[in-house]
């Protein structure tokens, strides 16, 4: 090889490299723009969630549905950024060979949470049915002892259902169901017959709290050079997924929530995360307040239902025919409130359940797509 040839090829190589660099830069710039846009959208969506209108208070049914919508939107955008026109080989290299499997692992955990929560919606529906019985009893005029007793029976069962122990779906405070066989201990206030012990869907020792804990485990925000590249939307998506699942678990009754984490670290300097962190703190505060009491969850409608139901139980306890006019009026107010909650539940629970299922299927599909890409990327490059 003479010097000339050598030089030629050397220069040629440089120019090829330069072109490649230019192309790479363009791709890279586009990518950075996409990432930035994605994070802006995340930020916008969560700030909308954190300033809800009166109709959809945080952790109400309609708010949860909005949250699920946010998840679906973010997920679609995320998938587009990561997978569209992507060389599969890139995703099989570090750090993605670690980040993506971790994300998919969290996705599988999220699926189980979706299932647990779908089942939990059923117990909310059960509460709705019990509340409806109380309503139809107390809607009578005039209210007599019969109506009051009927309402009370339903309301006590309702409270028992609300206080259901997450652990095994049985109520620690109630006398369980033994009475229905031996029956008739002479207890006038016995829990109504329709008290339902829930058998949970997911595996025996499965715990929503532990599941959430394990998704949080080793979640680390990208640092240094990674912070500006693709690892950053992966991190964002992880956080969104964890947040959504965590909020669902906090809101809706589900298997074993004792020890549900109230915090997972998201660096405050990430500007897309502001609203999310704010929401997290708000929900965590609520959870801490309520956790000790044992309860159905932070679902706004359930909390309102619990309050009204408790007031109505107090009313039924002190009721003596024909009843004090003021108290009757107060009770009528609670009945109206319960009626409204039941209406919201009637309209919202099934769609919520379907929505959770939709999220479930989306996660499955997206996981499959990622696995396909990973598989392609791991094939030897010829």
């Amino acid at each position, binding site marked *: 090889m003479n010097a000339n040839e050598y030089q030629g090829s050397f220069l040629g190589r440089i120019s090829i490299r330069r072109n490649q660099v230019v192309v790479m830069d363009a791709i890279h710039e586009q990518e950075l723009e996409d990432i930035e846009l994605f994070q802006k959208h995340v930020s916008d969506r969560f700030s909308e969630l954190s300033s809800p209108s009166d109709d959809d208070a945080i952790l109400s049914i309609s708010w949860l549905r909005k949250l699920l919508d946010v998840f679906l939107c973010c997920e679609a955008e995320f998938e587009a950024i990561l997978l569209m026109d992507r060389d599969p080989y890139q995703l099989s290299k570090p750090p993605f060979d670690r980040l993506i499997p971790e994300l998919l692992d969290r996705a599988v955990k999220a699926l189980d949470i979706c299932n647990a929560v779908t089942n939990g919606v059923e117990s909310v529906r059960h509460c709705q049915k019990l509340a409806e019985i109380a309503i139809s009893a107390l809607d009578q005029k005039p209210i007599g002892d019969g109506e009051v007793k*009927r309402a009370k029976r339903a309301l006590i069962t309702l409270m028992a259902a609300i206080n259901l122990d997450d652990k095994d779906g049985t109520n620690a405070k109630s006398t369980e169901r033994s009475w229905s066989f031996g029956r008739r201990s002479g207890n006038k206030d016995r829990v109504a017959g329709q008290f339902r012990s829930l058998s949970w869907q997911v595996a025996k020792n499965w715990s929503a709290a532990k599941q959430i804990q394990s998704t949080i485990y080793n979640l680390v925000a990208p640092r240094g050079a990674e912070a500006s590249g693709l690892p950053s939307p992966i991190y964002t998506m992880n956080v969104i997924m964890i947040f959504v699942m965590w909020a669902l678990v906090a809101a809706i009754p589900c298997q074993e929530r004792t020890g549900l984490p109230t915090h997972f670290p998201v660096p405050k300097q990430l500007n897309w995360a502001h609203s999310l962190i704010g929401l997290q703190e708000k929900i965590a505060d609520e959870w801490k307040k309520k956790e000790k009491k044992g309860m159905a969850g932070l679902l706004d409608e359930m909390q309102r239902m619990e309050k009204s139901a408790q007031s109505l139980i107090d009313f039924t306890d002190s009721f003596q025919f024909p009843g004090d006019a003021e108290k009757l009026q107060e009770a009528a107010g609670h009945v109206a409130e319960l009626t409204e909650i039941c209406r919201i539940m009637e309209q919202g629970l099934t769609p919520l359940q379907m929505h959770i299922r939709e999220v479930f299927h989306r996660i499955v599909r997206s996981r499959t797509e990622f696995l396909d890409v990973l598989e392609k990327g791991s094939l030897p490059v010829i």
Partner: protein
Amino acid sequence: MDECQSAIPTVDGELHVVAAAHHIVKALGTTKNLSDDLRKILINLDAHLSTMTSNIDSKGGKGFFGVEEQLKRVERKIMIWEAEQMMIWDSGPKDTSDYLEAVDEVQTLIDGLQSLSVYENRKRKELLRRASSLLQMAMSRLEDELIHMLAKHRQQFEPSKYVSCRSTRWNVVYNESFDSLEDEPAKETSSRNCTSNESSEYIVDLVPAHVIPDIKSIAKVMFTSDYGQEFCEAFIGERKEALEQYFAVLKMGKLSIGDVLQMEWTSLSSEMNKWTRSMKIMFRVYLASEKRLCDQILGEFGSCNLFCFLEISKATLLCLLNFGEAVAMGPHQPEKLLRLLDMYETLSDLVPDIDALFSEEAGSFVRTEFHGLLERLADSVKASFNTFRVSVSSNKSVYPFPGGGVHPLSKYVMNYIRMFPEYCNTLNLLLEDRHSDAANLVTELQCGRNASLSTSCPMACHLRSITSSLESNLHKKSKLYKDEALQHIFLMNNIHYMVQKVKDSELRHFFGDEWMRKHNAKFQQHEMNYERSTWSSVISLLKDDNPGSSSLSKSTFKERCKAFGIAFEEVYKTQTSWCIPNPQLREDLQISTSLKVVHAYRTFLGRNPAHDEKCVKHTVEDVEKSLLDLFEGSPRSLRNSPRRVKP
């Protein structure tokens, strides 16, 4: 009861007449241009009617006396049970019907009292209040009775009674990897013809038939008294628990998706089996029966039966769904294929049942989910089929397979695809789009005995493409042998094995005669090639170089004898360790070799009778006998054996 009906109308009638008259008088009084006289008369009349009303009112108090008496009587009947530990329905039909009658009476009383609401009366209100309270007590009692009754009469079933034959299919688990499959793992000829009997539904009495009228009677009074919601919730709670109990009997472990994805294949395979079985029993037996029970009991009360049925079954359905989803999203290992096909076929068979059970709007969720699952299982079947094909062609060996026998890959593939014809229709359906050329030809294909059609169906094409991948892989593996003869033995063995497997199974309909002919020819070709590469040089030592002369010179003869001896011993030593597992094939080859070698040797010795017999190390008989030791897979040597001398 007659008393009650007679008591109320008397009071009622009088009150009505007076009230109506009073009303007319008042209306008349408002007329403008009335004469003073007339107005006076009306005022008097008004006053008179007012006194009459108050008279009737006080008399009415007495008029309600009968009602009150009746209420007291019913109260006693109902209250007596409040202190009683025993359940009413346990104590006999007399008590039961008395109680129901009493409840009916309370209801009638309430209805009667309510119809009097046109006229306010303290007594009436008080009685009404007492009656409602009594009714509530009775209703709460009935609810307890209902739950007790449902719990007491919960029927237990041995599920194996209903769906047995198909679940025993493939007891042998295909958990083996490519390298460890023993031959003939699947002697079980399947019992799939049983499936046709299964299509009839096994509706059973989840609650004994004689209890149904009792439950219905409770339903009836509770619904009539507007306590239907309570009935439904109690019913749902109890039946839901029963259904979960049945589900537990099926021993389908409740597994999280994470669990399923991490499961070892052996356990997963058995869980998949259980799922298939549980699905059938659940839909065909339990849910079909549960639906009937709901209809029997609640059919008369609007759409309650549908609502209750859905609520009862939902949790169990989600459990079944989620296992299916978890399996469908798992890795597509080839060994999963048959089980996946089982799952797919089961669900596909059940889809009409599911659609029928949940035909209403409220059940659309269930229908959509199971239809979706069916699609995902189909995708999973296709993907696993593909992985199977890929792994057949990409299975790599580093060392030659010892002895040149039947490679485990051949065994695995052939034994595995032998099961496919059972799933012919399904595979044709699922593989069709991958095979668009053939698709048009075979859309209406019945996998029958029609040779020309069955060999061109998508499954047949795929099967042949798999065996041809196998063949080319075997060719690659054969190159690992240094000895060319052994390469041929290896290919002969393996192709012969493939042919046998096809011939002895349903596969023959899909591979067709042409394939058989071609592959018969192939292994025979290898047989011939073997003979040529091993024996032609050996036999050439025995050939006559000068056909003209009658015999060889002594030294040449000696030399040839020695060379033959060495060559033969060498072949013997090597090829006794080679292996032809099929006895027929081995014998055939021994015979044809024998024919050539022994014949050549005998001729050689016969042409040179004069020479010293000392040179002849091996007699013709020795050679003939020794040839029978070849391909037995146990290395031997002739060199150290004592020289056998002709007696």
